[in-house]
């Protein structure tokens, strides 16, 4: 029963991806020269954030599961 409920948010996100194609006006333009290379130069920032969130998640899960 619970697993069926979990499908609802998943389906909603999938629907969002297809539905939102028609309404991209709000996104605004990219600056001249901004693209793949710009992001590649910032991958260390993204990597740092991924590491930070991973450590935070493991810490929180450990605290949650620690016996009362």
């Amino acid at each position, binding site marked *: 029963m*619970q697993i069926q*409920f*979990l499908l*609802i*948010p*998943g389906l*909603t*996100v999938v629907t*969002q*991806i297809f*539905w*939102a*194609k028609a*309404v*991209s*006006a*709000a*996104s*605004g*333009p*990219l*600056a*001249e*020269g*901004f*693209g*793949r290379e*710009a*992001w*590649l130069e*910032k991958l260390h*920032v*993204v990597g740092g*954030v*991924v590491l*930070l*969130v991973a450590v*935070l*998640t493991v810490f*929180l899960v450990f*605290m*949650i*599961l620690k016996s009362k």
Partner: protein
Amino acid sequence: MNTTLKRFERFFSFEAIDIRVVILTALISYLLQINAIISGDPLYLIALYTLLPWIPLCLFEGVWKVQNYSAVALLGLFTILQIGHFSEHLIQVLQIDLGNGTVACPPPIDNAINAARAVALGLRDASVPPSFYSVESIIKPGIGGQPILGPDGNLVSGPAACAVFGQLDLEIVHLVWELFGLLGTAFVLYYFRKNIFLWVAFAGLCWHALEHLTITYFYYFDQELLWDGFRQLWATYPAQGNSYVAHAAGQEASKLNFYEAGGKFGLMAKHGMFEQLTGFKGMPGRAHLHMGYNLFITIPTVLGFLYEFRTISNKYLQLAFSGLSKADVAKLTQEVNLRRFGKDDIVFRQGDVAEKCYIISRGKVNVLVENQEGKEIVIAQLGPGQIFGEIGILDKDSSTRTASIRAENRLECLEISASTLKDLASGEGGRFSSEQTKSQLIDLILERKDELISKS
């Protein structure tokens, strides 16, 4: 279904606050709201004035509910806040899709620069000073930053698509809310660690944190101006009362930092990192994607709350009747009434007819009996989680009160009817079917009758 509705009605009503205070607050809120509407205040101020008087009441009620219903109340309050946050995202998307809204969040301000531009364009009188209010209506800019004309030749305008409070794309608001949600969900998971819905919400929040921590880093810590781009210019003027319009007024060439150049789209939105690195086109815009993220978090949070809500029970009833099952305490919780007494108030007097019994949820009471000289003496003091008034209802030898009860200080009690108490004491086969509770009540009556005899 009827029971669930009753449980909802009880939980989401003001239990701890006098109805007169609630009515007075509603009246103040309504007057402030009407005044803001008549003054022509923007939507976020109307909403703020409407909500403001309720904040102290909700805080007081929230603390009371957490004290009485424990972690489920905390989860309930947290769920309401999460629904509120999701609603802001939903309203923003509706403003964009249905209201011709423009994402310019935070919306342009009617400051001296924008006002001067409006004067130059002949949109506003030079004698009207700038207000520094945010605008609510935006005339949409097209390529080059000039206003778009619709098929009918008129300017295309819509709301500033920043939801009700106008702060949706302030990066720090997103980050603070995201971290509040993440830590809050972790906190309630500590109490409900078997709740799979909350684990799903927690996973969604962890993923969402990646987006906001990355975007916020670029916003605050990467200020180098490296990219050629344009900044949208606005001319602002008053429309009605305190409502202002932002008129698209062209663009100015400018050097942009990483955030302004494209970092604001984050990891997975249209124009974001995923599209740039993979070449894939077709991700939703940031407003839509983040509404989706919040939906993915809000739905399991709501389901997780509803799952725990089925067995919501009062902490003090659990303390008083430790032999009852969780389901039975939940059932009993729906049958009690909250009663309040002031310091030195008499709850009942010795000799009164016994119709109710009480569980203390706050404060203390003194148990008084008349001795042989007719003088009242204190024979016991009772505190939170303890029961009184049960002897006159359950003892076959007595149908009246065997002692008087006086509040030692401010007192809150859960009132149980005689029939419910008899059900509790009926043991196996009864409505609550707990032999342990039956024995507990019999032992308590015997013990207290002995105490009465020995001390009076």
